[in-house]
């Protein structure tokens, strides 16, 4: 089909009274036909019917992660409590300095190193 003829068909298909069924058929015959690849249906079927296996695997993974998290979380909380107790016994308070391991005494040496005075 000549390009000019195809252009007229495209424009003509939008006329209110156009025989759209016949025009779309001609446009398709001219080469503007659309379809998916040959393996389209197989891909869709695989995604639909294999999906339950994937979902089950995902659920199992989430369950395992939750189990691991519970174990790690409990151990972590126990470690934090032990750390706080040992800190309190060593420093006698929960001040920021005791967390950072800095003594409460004013160290002139640091000021001298930083400012030179």
């Amino acid at each position, binding site marked *: 089909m000549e390009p000019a003829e*195809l*252009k007229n068909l495209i424009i003509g298909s*939008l006329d209110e009274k156009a025989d759209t069924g016949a025009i779309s058929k001609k446009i398709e015959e001219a*080469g503007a036909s*659309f379809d*998916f690849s040959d393996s389209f249906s197989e891909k*869709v079927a695989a*995604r639909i019917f294999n999906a339950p296996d994937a979902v089950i695997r995902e659920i199992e993974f989430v369950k395992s992660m939750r189990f691991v998290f519970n174990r790690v979380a409990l151990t972590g909380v126990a470690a934090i409590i032990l750390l706080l107790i040992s800190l309190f016994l060593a420093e006698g308070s929960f001040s920021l300095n005791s967390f950072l391991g800095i003594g409460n005494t004013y160290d002139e040496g640091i000021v001298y190193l930083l400012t030179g005075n």
Partner: protein
Amino acid sequence: MIESYRQAEDSELISASIAGDKLAFGEIMERYRRMVARTVKGMLGDSVYAEDIGQEVFIKLYNSLSDFRGEAKLSTYIQKIAINLTLNEIKRRKRFFSMFSQKGNSEMHEFEIADIETEDKRDAKELVNKALMSLEPKFRIVVAMRMLQGYSTKETAEILELPMGTVLSRLSRAQEQLKEILKNL
């Protein structure tokens, strides 16, 4: 066996698919894949992205088969799913490109038409693709419904859930735009 599926009514295939019959759903796909391809590829261009959206259409159809009450034709129901997913994809692309591009209105147009048998047919497809992609999505969809699917104005209005007047005005404006666009192609 397969012949019996080919002769079955849509309603029978739907019931069988809901019951887990893979072949019945396969027959539904065979019946409507070209219709979906015309809508999706007409709107998104003939690209691999359109193929993905086409797959999503049938997956969504499968998951919603039990909701299908048979009040409308199955083709209309599938067409609506295809249009919704395609328009969502266009919006998603616009958002994506607006993040990385100054224009913000870019769409990805990739044509894979090298496998068409003759040069004439390749040219025809390229012309149709370019013409469609030059239109705004709201005009493109009515043109695709008319030009590629062959729907009447009434059917187009029903599927797009738009008043007839809106469809007619969009068709008229799209026609004016296409006249200008096609002059340069």
